[in-house]
């Protein structure tokens, strides 16, 4: 069973409370169609679990397969530096079929982010190392494709569908509760 090698920290992009019963962590690629399919599933799960779920997103761009994946991930990191990671994360998935340089600027503009600074950040590789660090931690944790989910630090190998993920998260919450009361 593969385990998460780098624990969730302040450096991560996190939604939900730190003391949530369950942490769902995704290694994803903005240009990957399977990640795009999982995106609304995660939203539904967050709605279902509310404050009981913490969601974490890490970058795993497959650069050779997806020519815009690395720049998309760096665009999201740029938005994060301006406090708008999740808004950009959502926009990138919602515009997956047309990702590219102009679209990154357009989305940044939509979020009132400085587009010239984004151009400079992408050209200068300001967030390249940050994205590579996520990738490296994923590979070492047994990520073998995208999306790969971890539930409370254990790799989830089931289907990325609502019902199956819901059941796995429920089970993990139950275990966590048992461990806390023992």
């Amino acid at each position, binding site marked *: 069973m593969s385990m998460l090698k780098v624990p969730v920290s302040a450096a991560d992009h996190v939604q939900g409370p730190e003391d949530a019963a369950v942490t769902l962590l995704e290694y994803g690629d903005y240009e990957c169609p399977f990640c795009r399919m999982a995106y609304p599933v995660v939203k539904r799960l967050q709605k279902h679990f509310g404050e009981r779920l913490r969601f974490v997103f890490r970058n795993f761009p*497959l650069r050779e397969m997806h020519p815009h994946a690395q720049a998309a991930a760096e665009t999201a990191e740029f938005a994060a530096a301006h406090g708008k990671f999740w808004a950009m994360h959502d926009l990138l998935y919602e515009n997956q079929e047309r990702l590219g340089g102009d679209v990154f600027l357009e989305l940044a503009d939509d979020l009132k982010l400085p587009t010239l600074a984004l151009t400079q950040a992408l050209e200068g590789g300001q967030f390249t190392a940050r994205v590579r660090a996520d990738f490296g931690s994923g*590979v070492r944790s047994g990520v073998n494709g995208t999306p790969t989910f971890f539930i409370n630090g254990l790799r989830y190998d089931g289907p990325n569908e609502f019902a199956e993920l819901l059941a796995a998260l429920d089970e993990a919450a139950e275990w966590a509760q048992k461990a806390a009361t023992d």
Partner: protein
Amino acid sequence: MSDTQATAVSGLLAPGTKAPDFTLQFAPHQDFSLSELRGKPVVIAFYPADWSPTCGDQIGLYNEVLPEFEKLGAELLGISVDGPWCHKAFAEARHLHFRLLSDSEPKGAVARLYGAYRGADGISERALFVIDRDGVIAWSYLSPIRTNPGADGILEALEKLPR
């Protein structure tokens, strides 16, 4: 393929064994020998076939992880029974930046040498080897045939090699 076959007992060459040398075509009419890499750690990934979905994911993943292998000074070789022209088309389509070797004549000879041949199916197993700088096998792993084994085991083995 049944699941019982997929979890066959490993007959792979074990750690501590000298890695048998071999010469295979890595491109049409171009030979490559393992011994050319002596002095460098080598990762060998035997895989069943070009183009099949799981292999694609595995080979595609290793292509993305190459910079991590390179940081550790290691060279990656992919080996299957596909011919050199097939490898060439596959490598071009997937933008692969490492050598794919053809274990096609006699079919599967190198896979057999490493205990990684699947005679019943006429393909190699999904098997991984990490070979140290002296040409000795440091780590080997037999994956269930339909499972992408990822790269975590390889990286861990490479990191454990004496510098």
